[in-house]
């Protein structure tokens, strides 16, 4: 038996993002539940979020974001030989989302699988993609984070419905002679499995807000530092820090403790809400579109969420 030798490195060639058209503002929510714009902004930092209608599934969101990333990369569908979709809100257990998205995008017979690491899912999937390229199992990988959390939310529960939202973000990952995706720092805390749950198909998402907040603001900055260490990058060298868009206070707390003093901090949550596995590629896509970060700069991605799971890596911005 022999093994394959892949590319020396892997890098993100392009990002793409998609949000459904439906905007739900804090004032909209305040009409039906006991909350206010001030209350929501001070607790979680969100001003508005996007929610997909019944005509748009998490597959549709993924196709839109994946198509944009593919177009941005300059590759054609036939160049992609692996599709990985990170999602925790598939509408059905089978078939998986990845195969359906690949088919819709005209990607013929790629490897196709879904990853469920909740809000950390994109970073897990990106790591799997980079490893596949370096091992020779794939040459170009479409990685997508897509979520339709709105279908798992109790819209009368003010503890959750103000936070979660729908969206998708994608990346095309390809071979590289130099490292463009650093080693992942990942892990999990299964002892806290009940902190964020959708118990069964008839249940809505439930979150122990204080437990998650305490964990995120005390346990994750060492993971962020570890991801930098593994890549040999000083946090001060980062051009961008793109953590999962869970809560603005968590984002600011981790950023402060990380010491990424020269980095633009992603705060996409303000206008996008918490879109779980989609939030990191969605945020970074929009930062690139707005010219807030430059090609070639280093960005630290840090996903964390239900499981509890976490994963982070440094990447070079395409």
């Amino acid at each position, binding site marked *: 038996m022999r093994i394959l030798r892949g590319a020396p490195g892997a890098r993100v060639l392009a990002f793409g993002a998609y949000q459904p058209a439906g905007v739900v503002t804090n004032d909209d929510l305040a009409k039906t539940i006991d909350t206010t714009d001030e209350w929501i902004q*001070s*607790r979680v930092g969100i001003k508005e979020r996007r929610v997909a209608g019944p005509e748009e599934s998490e597959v549709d969101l993924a196709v839109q974001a994946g198509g944009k990333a593919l177009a941005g990369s300059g590759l054609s569908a036939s160049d992609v030989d692996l599709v990985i979709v990170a999602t925790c809100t598939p509408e059905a257990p089978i078939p998986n989302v990845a195969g359906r998205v690949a088919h819709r995008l005209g990607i013929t017979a790629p490897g196709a699988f879904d990853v469920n690491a909740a809000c950390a899912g994109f970073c897990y999937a990106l790591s799997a993609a980079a490893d596949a390229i370096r091992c020779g199992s794939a040459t170009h990988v479409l990685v997508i984070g897509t979520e339709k959390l709105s279908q798992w939310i109790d819209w009368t529960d003010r503890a959750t419905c103000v936070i979660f939202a729908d969206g998708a973000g994608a990346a095309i990952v390809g071979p590289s002679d130099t490292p463009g995706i650093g080693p992942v720092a990942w892990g999990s805390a299964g002892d806290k499995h009940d902190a964020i749950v959708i118990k069964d198909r008839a249940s809505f998402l439930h979150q122990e807000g*204080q437990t998650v907040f305490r964990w995120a*603001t005390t346990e994750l900055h060492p993971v962020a530092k570890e991801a930098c260490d593994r890549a040999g990058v000083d946090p001060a060298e980062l051009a961008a820090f793109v953590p999962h868009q869970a809560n603005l206070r968590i984002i600011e707390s981790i950023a402060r403790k990380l010491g990424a003093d020269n980095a633009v901090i992603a705060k996409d949550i303000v206008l996008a809400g918490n879109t779980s596995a989609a939030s990191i590629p969605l945020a970074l896509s929009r930062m690139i579109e707005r010219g807030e970060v430059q090609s070639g700069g280093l960005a630290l991605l840090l996903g964390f969420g239900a499981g509890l799971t976490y994963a982070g890596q440094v990447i070079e911005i395409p």
Partner: protein
Amino acid sequence: MALTEQEILAGLGKIINEITGIPATEVTPEKNFVDDLDIDSLSMVEIAVAAQDEFGVEIPDDQLKHLKTVKDVINFIQN
């Protein structure tokens, strides 16, 4: 040696000031965190974490929800 109520109060005042901006002099034993000081549940977690670093006493989330006043926290740390 156990800390006195005054020492814990002074430490809590400093922590609460750093996290919320509320003047330490406002932090007196009878004050209710929510009703009097307008401190939200997430800031309470930050205060509990900082208090653990300062006093070496862990305040778990299931206990934290029962601590309504500054005096409750002082008692918890002392006991």
